[in-house]
Every structure is written in structure tokens, then in C-alpha cells.
């Protein structure tokens, strides 16, 4: 067996196991940590596909930022497992439908030769000095610059909306402006009074 194949199966087995544990483990914090493991192994598999930019971005964004905040929230919540399990049977049909759809898609991808995969030949091997990052950047900022900018605009609108919806102005908060604090001078705070000593 080629070493690369071994690495693939190694990553894939851990990934599938971790993904299974995400939905079977009882403790939500453990589930989130298994999801982190899944993302990390997915990043490894993308590296094998020579998509190093996407792999590193996956680790950086999902493992390094999204899941940290996710854990932050999950750790703070007091989740009642019995309450969550109550709705299992009523949600099952929806979940099963999504699962079956994904199964069909995977069958179509894996059994590609029965569905006309020949129309899409495998891409030529990358030559030496090929930089995934450079190629992605070139495509994103030349051919697809308008869709790309549009997507970023949609994202920023979503961000502003999320902040605006959850922002509430609380009254009676003793907020101190740091600029004022820094601008404080001795003259504004201390007053030296000169007076003669007093007798009782």
C-alpha cells in the first residue's frame, strides 16, 4: 500500500469515527470537541488533495475561531438532555429525508462512472511551483470579483443585522470613556490649598 493511501485511510477512519461520536455522545461539550477533531481530519484530507489553502483555512476558521466560540456557548449552557431527546421521534422523518438525500448524492459521486463521469476528465497533475493560494486569489479577484464582493457584502449586512438585532442600550451603566481617562491631568483632580494651621 502506498504511504499516501495509508495516510488517507488513517485520516478518514478517525474522521468518520469522530463524526459519529458528534451525534452519539451524550455530553454536548464532548460533541463539540469531536466536531473539532472531524474538522481537523477533513483539513488533513484536503491537504492530501493538494488544496493546502482550503485545508489551512478550514482549520483556521472552523477549528481556530468558530468552534472556540461554539465551545464558549456550549460550556455556558446548562443543557437538559432528556428535554432534547423528547422530540426525537417527531424530528426523525425530517432527519431521515435529509440523510437519504445526502446518501443519494454520495452514491452519485462515488459511483460516478455509471452517471457519465467521463464527461469530466480528471484535472491534469499540478506542475512544480504550483501555488494553490495564488491560483485561488487570481480567480477570486479577476474572473469572479463581482460575485465575491457581493458575497462579502451579504455577509457584512448579516453581521450588522445580527449586531443591531441583539444590541440593547442598558440604562444606568457606569461606563467610563477611556479617552477621557487618559486625558485626565493633575490640575483636574488635585487642588492644593494653602492655609495657615488652625487651633481648636
Amino acid at each position, binding site marked *: 500500500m502506498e504511504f499516501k493511501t495509508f495516510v488517507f485511510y488513517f485520516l478518514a477512519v478517525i474522521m468518520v469515527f469522530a463524526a459519529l461520536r458528534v451525534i452519539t455522545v451524550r455530553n454536548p461539550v464532548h460533541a463539540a470537541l469531536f466536531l473539532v477533531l472531524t474538522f481537523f481530519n477533513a483539513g488533513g484530507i484536503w491537504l492530501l488533495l493538494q488544496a493546502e489553502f482550503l485545508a489551512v*483555512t478550514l*482549520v483556521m476558521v472552523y*477549528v481556530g*475561531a468558530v468552534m472556540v466560540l461554539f465551545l464558549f456557548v456550549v*460550556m455556558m449552557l446548562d443543557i437538559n438532555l432528556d428535554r432534547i431527546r423528547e422530540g426525537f421521534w417527531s424530528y426523525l422523518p425530517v432527519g431521515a429525508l435529509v440523510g437519504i438525500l445526502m446518501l443519494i448524492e454520495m452514491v452519485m459521486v462515488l459511483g460516478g462512472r455509471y452517471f457519465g463521469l467521463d464527461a469530466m476528465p480528471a484535472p491534469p497533475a499540478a506542475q512544480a511551483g504550483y501555488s494553490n*493560494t495564488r491560483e485561488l486569489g487570481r480567480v477570486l479577484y479577476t474572473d469572479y470579483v463581482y460575485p465575491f464582493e457581493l458575497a462579502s457584502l451579504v455577509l457584512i449586512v448579516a453581521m450588522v443585522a445580527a449586531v443591531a438585532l441583539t444590541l440593547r442600550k442598558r440604562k444606568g451603566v457606569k461606563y467610563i470613556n477611556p479617552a477621557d481617562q487618559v486625558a485626565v491631568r493633575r490640575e483636574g483632580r488635585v487642588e492644593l490649598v494653602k492655609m495657615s494651621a488652625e487651633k481648636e
Partner: protein
Amino acid sequence: MEALLQPVAELFGPSWPAVWTLIKIVAIVAPLMGAVAYLTLAERKVIGYMQVRIGPNRVGPKGLLQPIADGVKLLLKEIIVPSGANKGLFILGPILAIAPALAAWAVVPFDEGLVLANVNAGLLFLLAITSMEVYGVIIAGWASNSKYPFLGAMRAAAQMVSYEVSMGFALICVLLVSASLNLSDIVISQGQGRFHEMGLSFLSWNWLPLLPMFVVYLISGIAETNRAPFDVVEGEAEVVAGHMVEYSGMTFALFFLAEYANMILVSILTSVLFLGGWLSPLGFLPDGFHWLALKTAMILFVFLWARATFPRFRYDQIMRLGWKVFIPVTLIWVFVVAVWMMSPLSIWK
């Protein structure tokens, strides 16, 4: 060298590349651990002198064996796992703290061609690996099942995610001007330009044209490693020692090693990205690893100096500095550098 290694390589057969890589890893990690040990002594000495004390001077000549004594003490101490703690994660926490701190060294170039993995996406790899450092702290804080560690973990999560953003933007400026993600190429690209031809190489390094980014990166680096004055994660006056409250013996030592290894990493990266790595500051002096070591030591001294000088930030002020000062400054500077590079005044042609 090649001829010397040939018989050894034949001895190991096909497993030789793995063995050779392992040897290289040991050659990086062993001196690193030594540097970590003596950094703790340097810290206590430097802060001691700054506070007009002597610092440790009892173990060995001039206190030079103090780190060894500390290490032995921590090795021999019992590891206590609190009864309500989540045992597996409690042990996993310190391991996850030290693993990224060591893994990041794979792409650090020490001299021309002297790097464990000379990968093209080195800078990206660093960003990804350093973004995982926070897990050790969060998992430790949660698994301890105790209030102060948990508060420390929450603080760590918010602080490290915030400062990673400004750090990332500072790195974007660096890769813009050097047009490469490879750390060795970034160093080499700093050794050119008008000042370099005049023999004043230190003026052609990235720190001068990217001065605001240099400052932001250094301060964010201090915040990322949870060092004073940004050490609210373990602030002893507020949350006792944060995520490390329940740890003892080697599990505690791992957090300690990770913190100091990260300090050295941030310092060496600052030297590589902004201070020209192994390049010599003046034209007539030869380049070499000793310059990198010297620059790293200087920045490490700044770390210690800052710790001895500044009082701890308040938590909300840390958040304000990260989000309201650094991120706007870095965002604008990315834009300024991009326009500068496209203009006829560009110095990076």
C-alpha cells in the same frame, strides 16, 4: 555530510526519511526546551534587577542551576486530578496546550535552507496552528469543574480570538510586500532595496515600512501568549491562576512550557517577519543564525521588560484595544500598503 550519513541511511533502509526527520525534530525541540528552561531564569533575574533585587542565586553558581531544580521538582510532584473533574479532558488540556506550541516550529527558518519543512504555505500553517493554542486553556478550564479555571477559560477564548484577527491582518501586510507565504522567501525578500545597497540593511527590513504593523504584531503577540500586561487569563488577583488552578506537577509544567515556548515562537517570528531573520544589520557583516538568535533575545527581553513595567489591563480595556484600536488600524494599513504597492512610489519592485 551526505557521505557520512550514507552508511546510517542504509542501516535503516526505507524508514530512513522518517528517522532522519525525527532526528531533525529532536535537534529543534531539545535546544528549545533548554531555551525555555533558561528563559524562566532570565525572566526572574531581569525582573529581579529591575526591581532592585538579586533574583535566584542559590542553586549552582550564580543560580544557574535553578531551572534544573525547578524541572526536577515539577517532575517529582504528584499529579492531582480533582474528584469532580472530567479526567480524560483534564489530562488532554495541557497536552493540547503544548502540541501547537511545538508543531509551529516546523516551518520556522533558522538560516538559509535550515528549516524542518520548507513549505510554500508556511505562514498559513502558522496561522492555523497558533489559532489552535486556545484549546488547551479552554479544555483545561472546563474539565477542572471549578469556578476560577472556568472564568479563566472564558477570558482566554474571547481574548485569543480577538487578537488573532489583528495578528492575521499584520501578517497579510507582510505577505503583501514579500509576495510569498514561504517564511524563508519572506526573509530573503527583506534583504534588498535602496538601503541594502547602501550597506544599511537594517533599514530595508519590513519593520520600517510596516512600522504600525510591527507594533501591532508585537503587542498582539504578547496578548496571544497571555503574558503581562495581558495576563487576565491567569491574573492571580482576579481569578487566582485561571485555568491552571487545579493543575499540579507535570500537567502544570506543560502549561508553563507551552507559555514560554510560545513566547520564544512569537519573538522568533517577529524577527523573521519584521527584523530580517538571519540577515545581518550592516552590509559588511556576514549573515547567520547568530543574528536571528540575537534579535529573538532582544524581543524576549521586551516581553520581560513589559511584564516588569506595566500594570495588568482591565478585561474590558483589553477587548477595546483589540477590537476598536488594532483592527481598524490594521485594516486601514492593509489598504494603505496595497495602494502604496500599486503606486509609482512603491519600494517593493
